[in-house]
């Protein structure tokens, strides 16, 4: 274990498309502060440092800075990465461009794909390994060197070596990489088995190539941040959130930038899981409503679900465990329109945050979900969130709704605005139901946790449309991702394809892979300068019956004492598979032959959690003291004079019956008629149906 540091300040920074959020936890007194500043462009480092400076004068008092970043994702989407060269097996240079024979959209047959490495920079060399690891053709190292020199002459700044079946035997690939490293002028040389020793050539090659593509951009960005922090007196640990919801060191992030693909959203889900668990609701569905999208994630028993891969954009596949997040195009900026058949639709086109809703007055004239909320009085036009605008233009929003929705449907302004919200709510509710069903859960037994700037305006609709019992609005829903940065554990994931029948499994080799994963993972924890309360090691085997291509993840209970892995037992592996398979499919196959496809290991350093009660309201006295006045707000029942409260001034235990609106700088919480909001001991607002 590393030496314990004296408690200091921990800072989480999440850089989103519109805002940079900062969450500062003062471990000593147990207090927290938040800041929200506009995201700076093109270099996000400016906003990052500005946000921290709002809350912390002396960086030497800071022990940990954890960053949720979209720098890697943006570089991929904008195709702003390095010039990468590929050296690959003869006959296979087009794997990256051929994908898995898919298409961008089901209907229409339009759209093509431009790979991040063009074909003329993908060079083939004689070599071949077979699926069982046999080397059929040894690698021609002269050809490898010649290819590397050609790529250098073409101006490539990074090179990846991508050989067939390298997951089964990396010998040819390793020899080629060693030869390239001798002549390549920088450290940006990697091979597919180093990055992802897992079967499936396209997914492995794509992950490796995208990783190389991102290295200079992400490393440069993190280096600028670290230099600025250090020159400000910071001497603590600087870490980055991964897509799997765990943090990693900056060194690891520079080596494996592809693991930051969903960094910020993952941190939000981690915080949501912790808040919900603390509040007594381990089963929760989160809904993050931003400008262009509504992101849904499911947490069961306090654990967020991981998916094995994602596509950042069509054909840009990153395979590494990541928090499962489903996105639909229904955000505050999503545009409402009526199709030629006379049906009202929301999205997928969005005004985003720039130009944004019509009410922003920045040039968009088509009505959005936010415009409907403004027209119905649910958002205060005099105090827009985020502080970028002085006021919102309600009249312009109403005109746009009239022109694009009201007139074609024969509805007045208010009815048209209600229609927009009902359709948007219905789509969000649908996403929640579908995410649950796809994973085999009944959504009714989950709580709903809205976060992001707009989600808490819509929680009542989720209760009504999905049949969910309660919504939990966190105390600071606008900075959830930044808070998640402070909470997240350090985690490293490893994979190794085994592709063996259980009966023929080489247990010595399996133990060797497990030990190697544990050694690498623990070394990374040891190198970290942050403190851990515990270290956990989790092993899973991807298994199936022979003939099935879809595997189930089988937890493998294995003892690790003093860093040494106890060899697993063949019968225990078979029994673990049977238990998982039965739980998933309800039955076993009497004549099926069990196969192990992959070993997956996770090495986790549990970081100390802060007590969420430190965020609890300090106010006491009657809830009425927090009442700011009233505003006319439109609900299904018509206009109602609605009480407005300063949310952060409400005391623990306060009960507010709807209709009511709770306002805070980054969020508006809507409590609809028939619902009640209660402030729990952490300052969360729990929204339930009124009794009786």
């Amino acid at each position, binding site marked *: 274990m590393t030496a314990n540091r004296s408690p200091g300040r921990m800072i989480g920074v999440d850089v989103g498309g519109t805002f940079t959020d900062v969450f500062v936890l003062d471990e000593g007194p147990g207090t927290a502060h938040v800041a929200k500043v506009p995201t700076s462009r093109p270099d996000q480092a400016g906003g990052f440092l500005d946000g921290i400076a709002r809350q912390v004068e002396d960086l030497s008092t800071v022990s940990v800075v954890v960053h949720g970043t979209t720098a890697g994702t943006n570089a991929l989407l904008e195709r702003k990465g390095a010039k990468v060269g590929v050296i690959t097996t003869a006959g296979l240079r087009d794997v990256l461009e051929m994908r898995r024979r898919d298409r961008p959209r089901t209907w229409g047959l339009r759209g*093509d794909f431009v790979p991040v490495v063009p*074909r003329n920079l993908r060079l083939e060399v004689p070599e071949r390994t077979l699926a069982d690891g046999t080397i059929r053709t040894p690698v021609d190292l002269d050809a490898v060197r010649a290819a590397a020199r050609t790529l250098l002459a073409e101006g490539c700044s990074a090179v990846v070596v991508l050989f*067939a*079946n390298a997951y089964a035997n990396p010998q040819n690939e390793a020899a080629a990489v060693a030869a390239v490293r001798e002549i390549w002028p920088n450290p940006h040389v990697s091979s597919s088995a180093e990055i992802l020793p897992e*079967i499936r050539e396209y997914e492995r090659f794509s992950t490796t190539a995208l990783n190389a593509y991102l290295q200079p951009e992400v490393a440069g960005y993190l280096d600028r941040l670290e230099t600025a922090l250090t020159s400000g007196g910071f001497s603590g640990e600087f870490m980055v959130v991964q897509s799997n919801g765990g943090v990693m060191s900056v060194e690891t992030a520079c080596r494996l930038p592809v693991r930051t693909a969903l960094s910020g959203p993952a941190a939000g889900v981690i915080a949501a899981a912790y808040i919900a668990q603390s509040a007594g609701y381990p089963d929760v569905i989160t809904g993050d409503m931003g400008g262009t999208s509504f992101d849904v994630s499911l947490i069961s028993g306090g654990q967020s679900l991981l998916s094995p891969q994602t596509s950042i954009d069509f054909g840009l596949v990153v395979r590494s465990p990541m928090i499962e997040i489903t996105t639909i195009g229904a955000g505050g900026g999503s545009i409402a329109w009526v199709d030629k*058949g006379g*049906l009202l639709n929301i999205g997928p086109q969005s005004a985003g945050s720039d130009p944004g809703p019509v009410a922003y007055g920045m040039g968009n004239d088509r009505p959005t979900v936010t415009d409907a909320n403004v027209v119905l009085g649910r958002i205060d036009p005099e105090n827009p969130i985020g502080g970028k605008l002085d006021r919102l233009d309600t009249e312009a929003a109403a005109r746009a709704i009239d022109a694009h929705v009201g007139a074609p449907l024969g*509805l007045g302004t208010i009815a048209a605005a209600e229609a927009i919200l009902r359709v948007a709510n219905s789509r969000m509710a649908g996403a929640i139901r579908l995410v649950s069903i796809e994973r085999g859960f009944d959504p009714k037994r989950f709580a709903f946790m809205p976060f992001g700037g707009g989600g808490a305006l819509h929680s009542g609709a989720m209760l009504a449309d999905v049949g969910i019992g309660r919504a939990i609005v966190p105390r600071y829903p606008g900075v959830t991702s930044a808070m998640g940065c402070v909470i997240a554990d350090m985690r490293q994931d490893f994979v190794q394809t085994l592709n063996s029948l259980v009966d023929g499994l080489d247990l010595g080799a399996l133990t060797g892979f497990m030990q190697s994963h544990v050694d690498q993972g623990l070394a990374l924890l040891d190198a970290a300068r942050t403190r851990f309360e515990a270290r956990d090691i989790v092993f899973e085997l991807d298994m199936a019956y022979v003939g099935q291509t879809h595997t189930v993840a089988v937890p493998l209970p294995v003892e690790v004492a003093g860093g040494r892995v106890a060899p697993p037992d063949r019968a225990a592996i078979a029994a673990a598979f049977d238990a998982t398979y039965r739980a998933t499919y309800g039955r076993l196959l009497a004549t099926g032959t069990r196969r192990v496809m992959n070993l997956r290991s996770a090495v986790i350093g549990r970081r100390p959690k802060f007590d969420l009660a430190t965020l609890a309201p300090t106010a006491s006295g009657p809830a009425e003291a927090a009442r700011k006045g009233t505003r006319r707000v439109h609900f299904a029942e018509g206009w109602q004079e609605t009480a407005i409260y300063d949310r952060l001034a409400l005391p623990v235990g306060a009960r507010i019956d709807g209709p009511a609106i709770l306002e805070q700088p980054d969020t508006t919480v809507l409590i609809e008629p028939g619902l009640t909001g209660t402030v729990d001991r952490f300052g969360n607002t729990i929204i339930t149906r009124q009794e009786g």
Partner: protein
Amino acid sequence: MTGAGIDPITLAVLAGRMEQIADEMDATLFRSAFNPIIAEAHDASHGLYHAETGDTLVQGKSGLPIFVGVMSFAVKAVIDKAAETGGPVDGDIWIFNDAHMGGTHLSDMRLVRPYFRDGALFCYLASVGHWHDVGGAVPGNYNPAATDAFQEAFVLPPVRIARAGEMQTDIVDILMRNTRLPQSAMGDLNGQLGALDLGVRRMDELLDAYGGETIRAALAALSDRAEALMRAELSSLPDGRWQAEDFLDNDGITDVALPIRVALEISGDRLVLDFEGTAPRCAGPVNIALPTAVATAYVAIKHIFPALPANAGVMRPIELRIPEGSLLSAEFPAPVGGYTETILRMIDVIFSAAAQAAPERVVANAYGTINALSIAGKRGNGAPWVMFSFYGGGHGGSSEGDGLNHGNAPISTATIPPMEILEAAYPVMFRQWALRGGSAGAGTHRGGLGAVYEIELLEENAEAFLFGERGRFAPRGVAGGGEAALNVFSYEQEDGWHHPPMASKMRGIALRRGQAVRLETPGGGGYGPASARAPEAVARDVAMGYLGEEDATRLYGPGWTAVRS
């Protein structure tokens, strides 16, 4: 049903809610199906259908494109069958695979369940999924030599697998005795029954919340609006009559080309698709049943107008004329196992005709064949193996840009298995898995590239079977764009490389260790005249090896050489 009187807000909300019921049924089956054709390739579909006509009311978004439109025929077949025995009963579930009644092919098992509300029939729920094996002469049921349906699979007409809520285990026993993979079939059957159960629960909730009259009105209004949307799209196109023809190489039995012809006529807000002149029913399995032809027309139209919803209203302004006795309306027991090839060609001719009316709305032909290739043999220990897969090709160019390299077929959304998974499972090695230079149709926006797959046998002996098309007639361009390359299949013997006498179909090719087969698949057709392609784009194609220098100059003229880098 009438759609008058429902308010537009409720309607917009219900549109999403009802589509979601079908989506949730899809998700239930994808999650629980045993066989990867359903679980991974999503070769399945679910929806809600009209109580009297069987018309599609709502269908899920995630199922296979070709099922959108074909399912209503399955429901109609059940409605007719149930009428013989006094009409549908609450708790009955019908099951069948007869492709001449329900469309597509015999591998697709259809389950249809009447949904009752307050003692009265409200609508039907249906589930279709591709089972791994349904008997017949060939495992997996892709028999290129079949001359009738009985050689393709066992044929099940609509029967009740549940009566008034009681499962009929004798029917289940018959099903399980007629498949080579009963465990897989049982898993899929349970998954489909589960999807229907979920559909019933969701319909109950929806009707509890909104009442039957509102839902009925919404369903009617949605069909009316889909019709209005289709009419609005058709009205935006010029009036006129345009013709197109193309050919299937042969039926796999006799080496004679089979024409598929269409006349597309637009007048105001109506469309006629007349397939007069198409070849008559043939001996081999490239026939299709009438329901398949109707569903294919819908697929083609939805590719041209992607925003159209999936309900029967879309088809009201469209008249289909499918000649009796043609291979597009083959009657039982004509073999239909190769229906994919025929419907791809139907889509191609519809595109070619529609492009004359509205070139900017239509993409050029895609590669046009699924190339079903199987290689089978025995391992050293005597264990049999069969590697079966479909292979990809290029998509057509469009008004927006070049076609996609190596895409999937327009009738499917299935992806190809990774090469490493195939090599790990079967004794083969891919010498090549590559883009095929020169395979794209030339054009202002060229087609996407097809692929080259060369597969070497690593065991002592094996046999190869191919069911493909486009070996004699290349994918066409539109709006003046050029043709793509032909599909070329080659196989290695001791005396060198050979091609099948029937171009893209062959069975029983004997391979020995070290010998290979090679598929060179077509690209997509080009869009617009090649002469209008930017010289820089041609120069880039040459630099990337998508096109040889000589071909570049032949197709596009010498202008590109002035801007080569």
